[in-house]
């Protein structure tokens, strides 16, 4: 990131302007339809980007296209819950409501949660988050529900946003920065069926294996974790006021229970590849037992850590008598939905640049994180809010939408926000992947300290993540700048 900053200062545009120089086409390109913005990738983030632009007042006379490789899906709310869910932060909910999609989400299905409890498997350390005014901290929504809501809003602006289903982009031709003579200044997009499009701005929202990013030759720092995530839809033993999100850090990885309804929760269990495949193949009863023991067992505790933790807690209570945690007990699981168990590999990634001349990356194409903080899609929605803001202002100023000037502003703003968060999540993943005493002690004290100090907690709460405070509290302990 420092390199990107330095480069931004010295030669802001020199290296960026030429994404990937290729011979530009002449007569062929004049026939291809010209769009103001093409969004490549019709997932949650890509579709929301197209919808946000389509509903923007300054884009009323603009032409937007959305390219989605898959077919159009008609969504009918099924009885059972999907196993792919996301934790939507209030900020993301605001974005979705800005183009009218949040109402659809609420009408379909979503579960607000008021509290988060995070604790360590190796100690008694616990941290809880809740808003004082009992507002919702976040919402657990199935990905399909979000997609359906966004698609409905896309249909509402069909005169401005053209969605190309079953269209995969196979090639991109980048323009030369200051074009001369006959070279087209636009990005040329070639689809699998031979059709061509031209666009003034290409937004890559095509996931962590982004083709746009690869074709633009933007360097990506990536790392495959030695973990996979197991997801499933679970049924609780008894109906409860299920408005707490639970996460416990086991040495093998965090296990999280996200509320879906009073009787159902979604499981996200990040663990080693071997354990993940075991979990996938074992019978229902053993699976449920593993989950319950993961949440309840104290096998990883050591006397030393317990003693040290207790000592720290009493020290804290001298400073802040009310500062100890009220420990709630997570619900126990009785059953798992058939066919709802699935595994997907985990990794981390961050593009060194989010933008080039006439190109911008958003969502997983720009950054990929571990699900332990529930931030993945929220970062993407944050990208959308920021980019829409800058593009809208540029459109109102009559500027060329693909100009690096405002794209760089978007990049700086988002990188400032994202990089520290992504680094923190990665650090926490590593910190909590061990049962080595010193590190356990460190994170134990960190967690306890953070939990005991309300102003600190509240400050972090504002940042919508419940994992970062642990990192920062540890930083305080070791007098590091955060």
């Amino acid at each position: 990131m420092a390199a990107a900053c330095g480069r931004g200062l010295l030669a802001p545009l020199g290296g960026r302007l030429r994404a990937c120089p290729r011979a530009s086409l002449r007569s062929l390109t004049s026939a291809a339809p010209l769009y103001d913005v093409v969004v490549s990738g019709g997932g949650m983030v890509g579709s929301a980007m197209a919808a946000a632009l389509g509903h923007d007042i300054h884009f009323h006379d603009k032409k937007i296209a959305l390219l989605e490789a898959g077919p159009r899906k008609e969504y009918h709310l099924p009885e059972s819950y999907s196993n792919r869910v996301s934790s939507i932060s209030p900020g993301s909910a605001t974005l979705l409501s800005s183009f009218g999609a949040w109402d659809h989400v609420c009408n379909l299905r979503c579960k607000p949660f008021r509290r988060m409890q995070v604790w360590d498997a190796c100690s008694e350390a616990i941290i809880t988050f809740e808003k004082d005014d009992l507002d919702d901290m976040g919402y657990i929504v199935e990905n399909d529900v979000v997609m359906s809501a966004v698609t409905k809003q896309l249909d509402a602006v069909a005169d401005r946003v053209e969605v190309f289903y079953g269209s995969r982009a196979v090639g991109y031709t980048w323009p030369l920065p200051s074009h001369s003579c006959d070279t087209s200044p636009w990005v040329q997009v070639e689809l699998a069926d031979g059709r061509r499009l031209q666009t003034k701005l290409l937004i890559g929202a095509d996931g962590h294996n982004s083709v746009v990013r690869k074709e633009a030759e933007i360097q990506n720092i990536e790392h495959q974790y030695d973990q996979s995530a197991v997801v499933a839809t679970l049924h609780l033993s008894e109906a409860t006021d299920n408005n707490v999100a639970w996460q416990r850090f086991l040495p093998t990885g965090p296990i999280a229970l996200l509320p879906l309804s009073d009787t159902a929760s979604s499981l996200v269990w990040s663990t080693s590849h071997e354990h993940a495949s075991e979990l996938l193949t074992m019978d229902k009863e053993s699976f449920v037992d593993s989950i319950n023991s993961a949440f309840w067992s104290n096998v990883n505790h050591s006397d030393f850590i317990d003693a040290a933790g207790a000592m720290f807690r009493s020290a804290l209570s001298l400073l802040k008598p009310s500062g100890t945690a009220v420990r709630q007990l997570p619900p126990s699981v009785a059953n798992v939905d058939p066919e709802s168990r699935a595994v997907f590999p985990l990794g981390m990634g961050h593009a060194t640049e989010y933008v080039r001349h006439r190109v911008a990356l958003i969502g997983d194409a720009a950054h990929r994180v571990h699900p332990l903080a529930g931030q993945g899609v929220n970062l993407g929605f944050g990208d959308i809010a920021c980019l829409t803001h800058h593009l809208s202002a540029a459109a109102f100023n009559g500027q060329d939408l693909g100009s690096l000037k405002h794209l760089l502003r978007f990049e700086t703003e988002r990188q400032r926000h994202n990089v520290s968060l992504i680094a923190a999540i990665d650090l926490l993943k590593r910190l909590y992947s061990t049962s080595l005493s010193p590190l356990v002690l460190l994170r134990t004290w960190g967690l306890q300290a953070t939990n005991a100090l309300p102003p600190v907690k509240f400050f972090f709460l504002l940042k919508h993540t419940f994992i970062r405070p642990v990192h920062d509290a540890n930083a305080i302990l070791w007098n590091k700048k955060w």
Partner: protein
Amino acid sequence: MLGGGGTLRAFVRALSGRRAAGGGHGEPSCRTHPARALLDRSGKVRLNPSSAATDLNGSMATVRRLLSTSQSSVDPKEMRKFQLLAHRWWDEQGEYSALHSMNDIRVPFIRDTVLNMGSAYQRGSPLSGVKILDVGCGGGLLSEPLGRLGASVTGIDPLEENIRAADQHKSFDPVLAKRIQYKCGSLEEIVEESVETFDVIVASEVVEHVADLEMFIKCCSQVLKPGGSLFITTINKTQLSYILGIVVAEKIAGIVPEGTHEWEKFVPPEELERLLEANSCSVKTVNGMLYNPLTGSWSWIESTSINYALHAVKSGDQAQTSQTEPLSEMESEQCSATAGTSV
């Protein structure tokens, strides 16, 4: 026009290793006289009155004309330099980068002023239905944003190369190609056929290059509809503008080619106001502008000592009284006192 940061600029250019724009056209024929090109290397607009008799600049103009008539063959080196600079229009990091970044303040200024005065606001097209004349449009740097906002723009420039560059740049965007028309010629040449045709006239960074300012303002007023707006951005004639605009920008930093500006031709806002009032245009706003060479961006400031932007409205009164005697001292002082209101 104020530029700066030449060393920094050269350093940046060296780092980015940008290739110099070549003369891509390869066309030796050029309707613009090559000698005029010689003197006007920056490609800035020079509006010369058609008749030599009304030229008030005397010897300098005569010398220029002598030079122009003595040159008959086309010098390819000069043509290339000229073409080189015609290409530079659309290089946002090139010689015209300050003009590009000036769009960040002059476009919102024009847009908001017109919106405030206008009636119907069409969503997504704030300037829809507005007819704009961009005098001295150069490569179309200002015409294009105005066109994108929905206006019908006519851009005029006496230099053929500029018009060609502008035409070529807009040709790739079908929406802009329809909304913007470029014509090669001077303001005087289009006056007869365009009396009271335009809602808005924009003369940005032009009046400091004009030979006969009175004639220019008169022509502007003639082609402007009653109640129409005139926007002018230019450089003030002060000690500060000499130091920054000529000495620093041209001689020291070398960012603006030497000879681009003549301090003698800088126009103080008071004089502009006097001429406008004489042509039944009343000045509504005068705002100072400042260029920061380090960030490459413009901002509005209180003081009009260097660059400034001016907005005037032609009176709705059809009768245009031609004032032969200049305003008295008292009246011109009053005029300058009302200036300086910020947008």
